């Protein structure tokens, strides 16, 4: 058993005693009822389970939750899909996903949203040349599987968000 305290979307949960074998995905979905994060393949191959982890230095990365012990998130601060909208106002990316009809069944969407958001924040800290944009987006999103959309509109949505604010994201 391990003690787990974790900050999720700005709110601290725990300390809770959890068994060592508990995955973070089960903790989010079964213990906390935060079912926006999905369970897809259980092998970190589809990334519908991915959340954003925020480092103390202001950088962030995405992490699967299906194969990672909940205990390893102790003391960490994460964002799930439930945390993107503020006071009912959707984020820029969420609006772009809707405007572009980027998702269909929605099962992979939380993962794509978290990954795209982390990408935007990473680009804002270190911009890339316009010529490298498509490759940058592809590298960021390629870990995420989708069977409905073929990825086309997800990529368009992310690209259009970046191209709408080139000073922020592009060199």
């Amino acid at each position, binding site marked *: 058993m391990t003690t787990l305290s974790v900050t999720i979307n700005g709110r601290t949960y725990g300390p809770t005693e959890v068994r060592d074998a508990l995955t973070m995905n089960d903790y989010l979905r079964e213990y906390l009822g935060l079912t926006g994060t999905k369970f897809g393949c259980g*092998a970190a*191959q589809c990334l519908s389970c991915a959340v954003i982890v925020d480092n103390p230095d202001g950088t962030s990365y995405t992490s699967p939750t299906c194969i990672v012990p909940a205990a390893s998130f102790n003391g960490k601060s994460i964002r799930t899909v439930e945390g993107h909208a503020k006071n009912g106002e959707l984020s820029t990316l969420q609006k772009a996903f809707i405007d572009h*009809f980027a998702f*269909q069944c929605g099962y992979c969407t939380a993962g794509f949203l978290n990954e795209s958001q982390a990408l935007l924040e990473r680009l804002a800290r270190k911009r890339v040349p316009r010529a490298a944009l*498509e490759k940058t987006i592809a590298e960021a999103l*390629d870990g995420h599987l989708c069977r409905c959309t*073929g*990825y*086309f509109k997800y990529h368009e949505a992310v690209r259009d968000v970046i191209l709408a604010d080139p000073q922020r994201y592009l060199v």
Partner: protein
Amino acid sequence: MIFRYGLWPAALDLWRIASNDPRAAQWEAAHWKDGQLIAPGLTPLPLPQIAARTHTRNGVTGAMAHGFNRWAWSQATFAIDGQNWTADIDALALRRGVGKFVRLDRTNVKFPPTDYSRSGPTYTAQCGTLVRIEIDRATGALRIAKGYSVLECGNALVPQVVIGQAQGGFAMGVGYALLESLPLYEDGPGNGKWTLGQYVVARGSYLPLRDLEIEMLPAVDANERPKGMAEVVMIPVVAALVNAIFDATGHRFRALPVTQEMIKGVLT
């Protein structure tokens, strides 16, 4: 058809049974065993012998049928050798001996009422696909350079969703044709150990994300009803890819998926 109007009359010939003999109508009492036709009280006849006689007396040696189902089968009657024959099909063509197939006229065709379509399956929503591919001669690696699908679905209620469906269908066709494999038996997914590592589906980097055009043809008129738009957007993609591989390599693959190793294997 082939039995009733080809092999059976030939067998009767070989058994020297006249057409007015009661046994001539008892084709249902006959059965096949070990490649021979067995009928009560008659000598078993081997298939090659019956087939040869079918050919020499110009009996029916081939049949093509078309059926249609909308929660019930279509039905039609055909005149063959002076008799009427009704079956759950709506078109029939026969060949005699080594001749060409000839379509028979039908009478009394009945199609299931369109009311039966309550669950919504669509008929005749159409889709075609073109692809341009590049194959690396050294490795057999295939890159999809460009794709184009054209479809019609009557009046589209939400065109963006129809386009999205066609895009997803393209991706699914790519996976089906080039990547996805589900072998039988012990090494296949039935062993309970498969993940998406073995069942490989297409990822974004494998698709022409900026080079897929979907053209949705306008409805015939404002009154044309919407049609379902579902799996049809996947089907021609598979054929297009395998045909493109033939165009590039000269080799026709007849099983899926066509993997990089297989393509490399036919490159000289």
